[in-house]
């Protein structure tokens, strides 16, 4: 051990350096966000509570019951029942999302050919019972209305992902 090292050890130099750094940080601006009082803004495309888009023209949902979202869902939490088909248009009878099983991968939003489904930027939706998280069609539309009233507009970059040739997207998404 050299003299220099000995002095360093005796004077607790490395500990003092650490303490100096702590003091510097103590005097700098805090990075903590005091959550319930202030909220950090979520970025566009955040995957939060589910909603079904209410079509401006018809006032109903856009879903065409193509079953793609139910097929692609990795946790299989989407239940769809429809009537019709075979030449005529399919009529949606039941559309349910079990939000407690959802893993928020966003595959359903991405695969939907008519942009009927979104994961909104709303993330505070704790509840008291499991039933509250079985989103049926009316609840999903209501989620959309709530979100629309709160945000006043919506742009989802995953409806038409940047950098992908629009020709490769389904017709409803171009």
């Amino acid at each position: 051990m050299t003299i220099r090292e000995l002095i360093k050890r005796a004077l607790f130099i490395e500990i003092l350096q650490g303490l100096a750094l702590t003091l510097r940080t103590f005097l700098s601006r805090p990075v903590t966000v005091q959550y319930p009082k202030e909220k950090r803004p979520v970025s566009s495309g955040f995957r939060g509570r589910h909603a079904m888009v209410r079509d401006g023209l018809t006032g109903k949902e856009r879903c065409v019951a193509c079953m793609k979202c139910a097929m692609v869902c990795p946790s299989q939490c989407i239940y769809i029942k429809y009537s019709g088909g075979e030449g005529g248009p399919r009529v949606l009878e039941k559309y349910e999302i079990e939000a407690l099983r959802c893993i928020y991968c966003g595959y359903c939003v991405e695969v939907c050919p008519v942009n009927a489904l979104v994961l909104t930027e709303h993330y505070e939706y704790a509840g008291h019972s499991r039933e509250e998280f079985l989103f049926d069609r009316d609840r999903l539309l209501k989620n959309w209305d709530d979100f629309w009233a709160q945000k006043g507009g919506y742009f989802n970059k995953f409806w038409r992902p940047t950098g992908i040739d629009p020709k490769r997207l389904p017709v409803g998404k171009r």
Partner: protein
Amino acid sequence: MEIAQGNDLYTEELTLNMGPQHPATHGVLRLVLRVDGEVVKDCIPHVGYLHRGVEKLSEFRSYPSVMPLTDRLDYISSMINNIGYCIAVERLMSIEVPMRAKYIRTVLAELTRISSHLLWLATHALDIGAMTVFLYCFREREYVLGLFEELIGARLTVSYPRIGGVRCDITEGFLEGVKSFIRDFPRHIREYETLIDQNRIWLQRTKGIGVISGEEALRWGLTGPTLRGSGVNYDVRKKAPYDAYDEIDFDVPIGKNGDVYDRYRCRMEELRQSVRIIEQCLDNMPQGDILAEEAPELDMNPKGHRVLEGEFSRWGASIAFTNEYATVPKGELYSAVEAPKGELGFYIVSDGTGRPYRLRLRAPSFVHASAIPRLCKGHMIADVIAVIGTIDIVMGECDR
């Protein structure tokens, strides 16, 4: 009153249960310790408390739908799990990924490595007793997660890459964020080192603890920084390059003594190398497509993926499907990537349908957990915590 002397003194080995809900075992790891006083004589790790059957679940999902499951393996470096899985399937289907997608993936993989190593450093230091490092590391980690959120809308379970490319192009805001991060981050690494690198408590807790020689580490199957701390130069990014790593210049930090301190040094240097890799990727980022032409659709049929004939017209009038399915080639394939923890391997057996017949995961945490008894035998109970920290296990990946 007589006091028992010498050989008459009654001593007994004590069996102690550490975990599964112990805050320092990084998840639900249960260790059964046989201790003599405070010295660990034997240690049996019990794993499986977080078993979710990912391998079995993936046999019932089409190849693209398996990917969100891989997020949940090593949930603090989910991007690299996604990339590893996508690379395995791409190799199986012989899909050539566009250069831009490769570079984007490399940037994101390194950002994930930084965030994972930051969490490792934070918790490892916290376990040993350095609270301040924990707070500082989470400050920077939060920034990286914020970048992920801006890019893809999720912070941890990203599901960003796609088989054959990535989901969406990177934005200007994201690029600016990454640039400002790699500008500031080397200063932050020096901050962490100021706090603990020469700190005498840190040195006493880490030097000479959990020593394993390079040869023995190889025999235990250790990989990643845990192996490199023992002086073995093995890195999947160098030995079997994937994505853009073969076009990028970076060093693989190697330790010497194979103790907890050397592994700590290795990971700290890896943080610096990650910054270097990101810098080079941003400088050489090519333009172009981000998803390969032959990439399977997200709603790929489990039987195979549909072949479209003709084109979608603007009005959707002349859509023609053939009833044939272009199936995935039959065969078996092992493909590995360098995850922050070690070599993450995917072994896929394909029977020609659109879902894996068998998907076997080589999770580094599982292999590393088996080395815990070897590393902590003969040390104190408090050093078991240091050993668990140094091999950097995540139980989500270990139990799968």
